[in-house]
């Protein structure tokens, strides 16, 4: 026999409105809560341990501001470069049928799984002063990339661009090519179609990809310190600064970490609507 339970009016109304289940079984609830705690407790640790009393004094110190400023502008530039170069590559991957594209796709996603330090070593061997290409940059133009902000941007672009590429490629793949056909029948050449139809329709995914890319670039450490080294104000980004500060001035490290946390949260919240819309549609 089915055993009846009591259903309170509020619950009745909720179920009538098509709401989902309110109570979750323990097998799901317990690991879910553990996962949540595992993600949140370290952040709580940062907040609780932060030296709030002299926070302002630490954060307005030149070295902290230098690192923040450097991180923000290099990260933004790296994201810009990723968009300018990555979107066309994503288009190529999604819309063309060139031979060997499967391999290109695999290679493009490699930096996603590669330890960033290895990426840094690879960059050094390619663009370092004695590197494959870097040698000629140095000999012919007197340009050496390592230990410059340019190297920071390159390291960030190297690890972060794949995030943008795969996001945009996925969107292009699932996008309706019918709009592009329609645009073509209205007299738009391929470039106009791309600019006026493909790109705008892609915007939500592009923004999501750019945010991912920006966030990854902001957190970039291994490739940066390997390829660009570390010098305050020039190549010492926030993560490197945090890492060093932890040895000499843990309070500063905690505060700098909090700043990064805050910046990340602000960016994610600011773009949350688009973000969620993309998540729901894909």
């Amino acid at each position, binding site marked *: 026999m089915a055993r009846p339970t009591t259903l309170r009016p509020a619950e009745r109304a909720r179920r009538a409105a098509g709401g989902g289940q309110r109570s979750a079984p323990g097998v799901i609830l317990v690991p879910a809560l553990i996962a949540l705690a595992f993600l949140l407790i370290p952040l709580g640790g940062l907040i609780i341990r932060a030296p709030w009393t002299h926070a302002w004094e630490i954060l307005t110190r030149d070295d902290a501001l230098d690192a923040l400023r450097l991180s923000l502008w290099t990260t933004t530039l790296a994201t810009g470069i990723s968009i300018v170069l990555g979107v066309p590559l994503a288009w190529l991957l999604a819309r063309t049928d060139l031979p060997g594209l499967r391999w290109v796709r695999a290679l493009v996603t490699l930096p996603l799984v590669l330890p960033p*330090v*290895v990426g840094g*070593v690879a960059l050094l061997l390619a663009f370092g002063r004695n590197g494959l290409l870097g040698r000629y940059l140095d000999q012919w133009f007197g340009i050496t990339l390592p*230990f410059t902000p340019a190297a920071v941007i390159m390291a960030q672009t190297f690890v972060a661009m794949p995030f943008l590429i795969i996001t945009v490629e996925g969107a292009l793949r699932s996008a309706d090519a019918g709009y592009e056909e329609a645009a073509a029948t209205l007299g738009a050449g391929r470039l106009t179609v791309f600019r006026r139809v493909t790109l705008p329709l892609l915007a939500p995914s592009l923004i999501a990809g750019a945010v991912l890319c920006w966030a990854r670039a902001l957190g970039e*450490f291994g490739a940066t310190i*390997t390829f660009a080294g570390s010098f305050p104000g020039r190549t010492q980004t926030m993560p490197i600064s945090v890492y*060093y500060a*932890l*040895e000499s001035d843990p309070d500063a490290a905690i505060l700098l970490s909090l700043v990064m946390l805050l910046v990340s949260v602000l960016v994610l919240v600011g773009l949350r609507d688009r973000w969620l819309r993309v998540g729901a549609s894909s």
Partner: protein
Amino acid sequence: MNSQSDKRVSVRTARAAAGAALLAVIAGACGVSTTDTTPEPSSGGYGGNITVLAAASLTETFTQIGKTFEADNPNAKVTFSFAASSALAEQIDSGAPADVFASASTKNMDTVVQAGHAADPTVFATNVLTIAVPAANPGKVTGLDSLTSRNVKTALCQPQVPCGVVAAEVATNAKVDITPVTLEPDVKSVLSKVTLGEVDAGLVYVTDARAAGDKVREIAIPAKFNASTDYPIATLKDSQNTDTAQGFVDAVLSDEGQKVLTEAGFGTP
């Protein structure tokens, strides 16, 4: 706080691994081996596993001493973690499980002692700096004065780590204003930038320059300007295997251990 330090340890490990990979790429040979599983009959009485946290500059010598120690004590196994002394001190402070700490400066050891993690450290070696340049000396470095030029790319250690502290002392002594392009996390990172030829010069310990073989050239720093750093060693309070830990410290202080160190270029205290 714990999760943070764990994260840092893993960053260290990743960096150390990649550093090793990098050196392997350059040298075409694998540099560091920390364990020796070949069982050998011996009279040694120490057993169990110990973890030794040691300054990056001790990589070659301690690895060698560790092998000998394991050979003498077949039941003992020594695992090393080499990094900047300041980073190691921070790890110990955050509760990293370890048995012995060997620092490249008394300052970092003092921090650990003051925090109550160790007591009665013994200085077992000293070290001085030298200018390491790539074998071809592309920056035409002749001495400390060369390092003031903007055209000479110089790598130094972070000011927090011992080799950075000593470098600052040397610069003060010689009244030169060194303009580095990068401040590396430890002395081995400085050295690898030199061996890769990415910088024209780096201030490293003589022992590191020597260990790099003919890939780098040493430009000696005059004794009147040079500064030295003391290397203290101590067992850690939280050690689960204090006997073996003390055994390893003794091995470092033994004549045989001292011989390995002096051969590598360390000074005796």
